[in-house]
């Protein structure tokens, strides 16, 4: 694991972390490290244990086994209050006091964090989420998207070392979700460490430096492109105008081409170890063979492909 940010300075780490509720395992044997300033995505299907992991790291739930360090402090009962002072959590449900105004909500939380000069902090947080002009509005009168923004402002108040975002765009329309993405992008540029749980793989791919895929146990962890490379062979897809008479003679033995197969009469998929070497070699071989080449392109697997591959493996495993 190579966390982004200062070398060796991890903001958050877990070793063999586990939580059971009686017989039911919420998550187990979870080990990871998040570097300072890193945006770390935590992906998984419903019931995978994502929210329980966040609650455990945020000291709301006691782990059944394993250890963790949060914002430089071991996750132990005597450190709970100090850990909560150093982090902020934006839960899936905003949990705002609907009868209180935006500013009253933030003032209450500023005092709960004992912030020395709450007013400027509140203004800065509202400015960051572009809600300064709605400060006097009761939270009950705001749309879901605006409530999420208030919730984010509340999380930013204490200038946290680690920000836990639990499904921050859940249930939001695309425009509101885009707004939240932009805000997270802004925080990332400011160097805030973010632990993001999400179902939205496009969101994770766009925002996260690394992702972990959890399905009760940690299934995989790494940069999205690393995960793709781990799970899927890199491939080139070649389209020709007419079928090749002897495709084996064209593709076999080419530099960095490990395998090939015909997808249909004029399309061929090459398994390659290095696209930058294999693609020019394939084009040269095709031209030398007199083929009319329509296109040669790398087939990209998305994070969604990685996710589905891992989660489907679990589903298949359970069926067996």
């Amino acid at each position, binding site marked *: 694991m190579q966390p982004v940010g200062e070398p060796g300075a991890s903001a958050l780490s877990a070793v063999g972390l586990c939580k059971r*509720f009686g017989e039911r395992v919420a998550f187990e044997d979870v080990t990871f490290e998040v570097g300072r300033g890193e945006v770390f995505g935590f992906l998984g299907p419903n019931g995978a244990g994502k929210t*329980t992991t966040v*609650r455990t790291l*945020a000291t*709301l*739930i*006691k782990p059944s086994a394993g250890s963790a360090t949060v914002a430089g402090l071991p996750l132990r009962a005597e450190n709970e*209050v*100090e850990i*909560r*002072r150093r*982090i*902020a*959590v934006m*839960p899936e*449900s*905003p*949990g*705002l*006091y*609907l*009868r*209180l105004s935006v500013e*009253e909500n933030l003032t*209450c*939380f500023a*005092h*709960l*964090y*004992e912030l020395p000069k709450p007013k400027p902090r509140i203004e800065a947080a509202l400015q960051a989420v572009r809600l300064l002009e709605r400060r006097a509005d009761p939270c009950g009168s705001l749309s879901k998207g605006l409530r999420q923004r208030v*919730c984010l402002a*509340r999380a930013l108040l204490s200038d946290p070392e680690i920000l836990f975002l639990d499904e921050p765009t859940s249930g939001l329309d695309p425009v509101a979700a885009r707004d939240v993405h932009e805000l997270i992008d802004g925080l990332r540029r400011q160097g805030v460490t973010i632990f993001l749980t999400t179902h939205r793989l496009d969101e994770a791919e766009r925002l996260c430096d690394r992702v972990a895929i959890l399905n009760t146990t940690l299934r995989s962890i790494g940069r999205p492109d690393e995960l793709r490379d781990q799970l899927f062979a890199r491939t080139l897809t070649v389209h020709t105008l007419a079928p090749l008479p002897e495709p084996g003679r064209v593709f076999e033995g080419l530099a960095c081409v490990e395998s090939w197969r015909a997808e249909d009469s004029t399309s061929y998929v090459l398994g390659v170890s290095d696209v930058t070497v294999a693609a020019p070699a394939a084009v040269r071989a095709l031209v030398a063979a007199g083929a009319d080449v329509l296109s040669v392109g790398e087939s990209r697997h998305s994070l969604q492909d990685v996710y589905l591959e891992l989660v489907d493996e679990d589903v298949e495993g359970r069926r067996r």
Partner: protein
Amino acid sequence: MSFSWTRVRAMAGKELTEYRRTGSIISTMAVVPLVFILPPMIEIFTSSASALASGDRLIYMLGIPAIVPAVIAAYAVVGERQQGTLEPVLTTPIRREELLLGKAIAALAPSLLMSYLVYGLALALVEIFASAGAATAVLKGGEIIAQVIFTPLVAGWAIWAGMAISTRTRDARVAQQLGTLVSLPVFIVAALIAFGAIHASLGLVLGLGGALAVLDFVGWRVTSALFDRERLITAGK
């Protein structure tokens, strides 16, 4: 990090602002006192002075600090849980003792205000409109002092009992019903004294006062011990 009065004040202030803007709480605070001022007033204005000589009629009004804060306190934790506002608060550095004390102060303040206001109103009505004999029979210095002292003690018991229930139940309505039930014994004792069924000797008054004071002190610690973050966050709503 040590105990923080700033966080207690933040929680109490938030609660009081919410009360002011919640119609059901305002109506509870307005209606319940009526229930407790009417019976003694009717009796005082319809009975002879000799009939009023036994008992301490206005002690019946201790029902106000027994019931009003119990209803509010019983909602305090489970209500936040049902609204989904508890989890964000619990992710802040607030300790459970601070959170509960803030909520208790917020329940106590309006209950005391309402109890004293209504009691003052009752005293004024008797002084102005009751016959001289009835006023002399009802307005006793010792009873007035007892009312002033017992009002916060009774309210304290009602609050901690209500809040203890609130930390362990899943439904706000159930919590409020149970909170009211738990306050009933205190109210029943007050009613028995008010109507002369029990003679309020100095020993009894001191004993009851001492017991309530101890319960109020222990109540905060017991309720704090019952407040289990994990259970409140993870148990089904």
